């Protein structure tokens, strides 16, 4: 792996940039791996990287049906934060946020991770009570959170509609200053390159079509490029979790929905914070290219279409313009939608399955991007040691039957009801 650095960039300038090598190999599958990770998204690639880096398990393959950066890792709003309410989620996402800090250096890849602050807006007295409660819960567990007054929010984001007749009056907010955004596909490329350099085989265009199970134990996978043996298999393919688990006779607590996002034409810097409103459900940030990135509710019915309904675009645009009227003149450039694994308490599933040596990482709902490093770290632990990391232990597959749900939003078994 040729190191990326200012010096090498300068030296490349002297020889016409002919010396750069490809960022990762395109290996043929070997007959057998110690661990096979199914799905080379942000989570799968991070898992492979930490297996090799932290646990020394280097005979690892990551199998990808399509190409790297073609799934949800490139279909999100790139927001990173850890300011959740429940302690289990706080522990998991704070572990992830700590890994984000310094990850670009570690991977030697510019992830454009920008801790510009992630702000929840409060639009009523009860919103502010709820935000204060969440802030207290965070600070009790050592995670940064600051409650902001209306005047402080107005100073931080001067473009917010603070007029007396604002459609969504701003009473204040709760900010996590360590939150922010990252360049989404760079996360996949950075992990793929770093994992490859440690000996991991990242194999694209290799769809898993079956699991080879002998006596209740998985021993390998069937793929479009032949059978591959494995000591352990880790499923990690949002949108395909149900289908993959069915190959092992498992029926998952997952329903697939659509989540949309869209960007405007690029403009000069105007919003330097991530603005979120959870009571109306609108996410606004500005990418380094200058595009305004908008997101909102999922489409609220099961679908694999990866294209959203126009009604949602209209709704999110209306909310964004009501919050920041200056956005009204912008034209939208692109919209996209990702297939989300909605679990039945809004929290992910990481851990063992009833099939020996088969592991599952799924159910990230619409919050998977921020969790890429943490999810990979925890899943690598499970795949290396054969048991869940203590932080991941509450996120077991059997919690739905035992009743130990981790229900951040209090939605119960209806992932589309907020």
């Amino acid at each position: 792996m040729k190191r990326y650095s200012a010096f090498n960039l300068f030296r490349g300038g002297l020889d016409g940039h002919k010396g750069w090598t490809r960022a990762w190999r395109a290996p043929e599958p070997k007959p057998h791996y110690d661990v096979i990770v199914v799905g080379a998204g942000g989570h799968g690639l991070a898992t492979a990287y930490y297996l090799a880096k932290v646990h020394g398990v280097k005979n690892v393959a990551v199998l990808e049906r399509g190409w790297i950066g073609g799934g949800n890792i490139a279909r999100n709003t790139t927001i990173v934060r850890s300011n959740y309410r429940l302690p289990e989620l706080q522990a998991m996402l704070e572990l992830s946020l700590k890994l984000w800090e310094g990850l670009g250096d570690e991977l030697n890849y510019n992830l454009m991770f920008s801790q510009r602050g992630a702000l929840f807006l409060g639009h009523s007295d009860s919103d502010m009570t709820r935000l204060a409660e969440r802030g207290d819960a965070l600070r009790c567990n050592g995670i940064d959170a600051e409650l902001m007054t209306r005047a402080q929010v107005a100073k931080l984001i001067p473009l917010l509609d603070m007029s007396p007749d604002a459609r969504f009056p701003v009473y204040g907010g709760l900010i996590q200053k360590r939150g922010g955004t990252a360049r989404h596909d760079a996360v996949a490329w950075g992990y793929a390159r770093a994992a490859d350099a440690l000996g991991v085989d990242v194999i694209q265009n290799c769809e898993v079509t079956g699991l080879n199970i002998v006596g209740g134990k998985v021993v390998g996978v069937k793929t479009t490029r032949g059978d591959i043996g494995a000591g352990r298999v880790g499923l990690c393919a949002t949108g395909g979790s149900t289908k993959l688990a069915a190959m092992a006779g498992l029926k998952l607590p997952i329903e697939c929905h659509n989540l949309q996002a869209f960007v405007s034409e690029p403009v000069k810097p105007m919003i330097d914070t991530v603005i979120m409103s959870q009571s109306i459900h609108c996410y606004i940030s500005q990418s380094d290219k200058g595009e305004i990135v908008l997101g909102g509710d999922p489409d609220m019915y099961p679908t694999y279409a990866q294209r959203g309904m126009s009604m949602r675009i209209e709704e999110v645009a209306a909310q964004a313009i009501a919050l920041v009227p200056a956005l009204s003149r912008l034209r939208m450039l692109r919209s996209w939608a990702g297939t989300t694994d909605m679990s039945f308490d809004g929290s992910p599933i990481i851990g063992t399955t009833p099939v020996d040596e088969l592991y599952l990482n799924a159910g990230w709902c619409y919050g998977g991007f921020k969790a890429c490093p943490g999810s990979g770290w925890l899943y690598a632990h499970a795949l290396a040691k054969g048991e869940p990391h203590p932080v991941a232990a509450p996120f077991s597959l059997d919690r739905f039957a035992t009743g130990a749900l981790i229900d951040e939003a209090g939605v119960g078994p209806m992932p589309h009801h907020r």
Partner: protein
Amino acid sequence: MMLIPCPHCGPRAAAEFTFERPLESIVPLDATPAEAVERLYTRENPRGPSWELWRHAYGCRGWIKLLRNTATHEIAEAAAIEGAA
């Protein structure tokens, strides 16, 4: 946007409807705990045709069932639910 054929009102925009759950996940009142867990917390989650319970929430407010394709959004059948509308 989907056009949903309400059996009571005719074709209407999807904006008028709310998705409730797949028919498979309706829990009978006499279900055992194991059966209730299975129905509430697991799904076939098919990529293709699926029987679903919807409600014409901003129209006639009736419960309806749809045979809807989750990949193409095509609706092959729509029916009223007897005694529930």
